[in-house]
């Protein structure tokens, strides 16, 4: 959501810049009794002076605006996953969540028989709960759990709760 917000803000900023500059220049041209080609061509004047409030087009646009607004509002107000994982309440030490997840995924992938791994870490209270989804031999589950545990120890992680490992067998090519 953070990246989406950044990209959307850049698009909004560019749109404001372009639209604002066009409106300013065209309005100045009109004020000086010069031809304003963009304002004359668009036909917006005809739409605004002929469309009525109960027209289906107006209702569709208004409904779409309200729905898009509600969707954006819900996306902004829901709880986001924090960027950092706190390791200790007292000393202010945090680990970057993405880095931790990548390291744990690397540790899981290093286990023989495991091909791809993806790790998500959730924090409940002071405990970390890693969830591993990997492709490989289901018999390697215990080794994956051990590797993740060792890596967490290397990262000086706080008390770890249950490590959930989901190993999906690799599909054989037909």
């Amino acid at each position, binding site marked *: 959501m953070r990246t989406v917000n*950044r990209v959307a803000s850049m698009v909004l900023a560019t749109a404001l*810049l*372009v639209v604002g500059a066009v*409106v300013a220049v065209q309005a100045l041209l009109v004020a000086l009794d010069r031809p304003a080609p963009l304002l004359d061509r668009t036909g917006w004047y005809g739409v605004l*002076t002929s*469309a009525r409030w109960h027209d289906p087009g107006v209702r569709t646009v208004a409904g779409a605006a309200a729905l898009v*607004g509600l969707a954006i509002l819900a*996306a902004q107000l829901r709880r986001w996953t924090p960027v950092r994982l706190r390791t200790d309440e007292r000393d202010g030490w945090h680990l970057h969540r993405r880095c931790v997840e990548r390291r744990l995924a690397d540790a899981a992938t290093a286990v023989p028989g495991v091909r791809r791994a993806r790790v998500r870490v959730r924090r409940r209270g002071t405990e970390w709960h890693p969830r591993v989804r990997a492709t490989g031999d289901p018999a390697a589950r215990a080794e994956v759990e051990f590797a993740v545990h060792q890596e967490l120890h290397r990262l000086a992680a706080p008390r770890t709760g249950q490590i959930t490992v989901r190993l999906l067998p690799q599909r054989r090519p037909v």
Partner: protein
Amino acid sequence: MTDAAHRLLWTIVALLLVLGGGVALGVSFDVLPGDPGAVLVGAGALDRWRLAAPWSTLAAAVAGALLALAGARLLARELHRPDHAMRGTLSRPGRRPGRTRLATEVLAHALERDLTGDPGVRRARVVLTGAPPRPDVWIRVDLTADARAAGVREHVHSAVRRFATTAGCQPAHLDVTARIEPGRP
């Protein structure tokens, strides 16, 4: 711009969309005051616009310029690298009217040099804010792939203790974020 600033911006945009869409729907379905059969921009509004000319068109030009300015400022903030914006200032009110402000770059660079003294720390970034005797210390360290987190953690706390002793600034709040490079040692 920070994540919180983006979140606020898009919450405001969303509220405006919901409000505008809701009011238009309310008028359209005759729930809110207004004639659903009326055109969006009526003859009365057009007459008022023409009577106010050329001030109305000049007002539109000014509104357009303000819109473009807001867009340019937003774009500049988006393209601005946050590292350059992170300059802290220590400030203390004096006995007489006025306030002493100290650019913290020198102190911060000293702490950064101390932090990068450990081979496990590739880069360090320090920002000091707040009041001089007890500033808030914000640290970001990039660790090498083979760094032992516990050892680096101890090194960071030793560096902060040394900094507090030499600079005479005991941190009121310490916030450390460690990023670890991918890859196994």
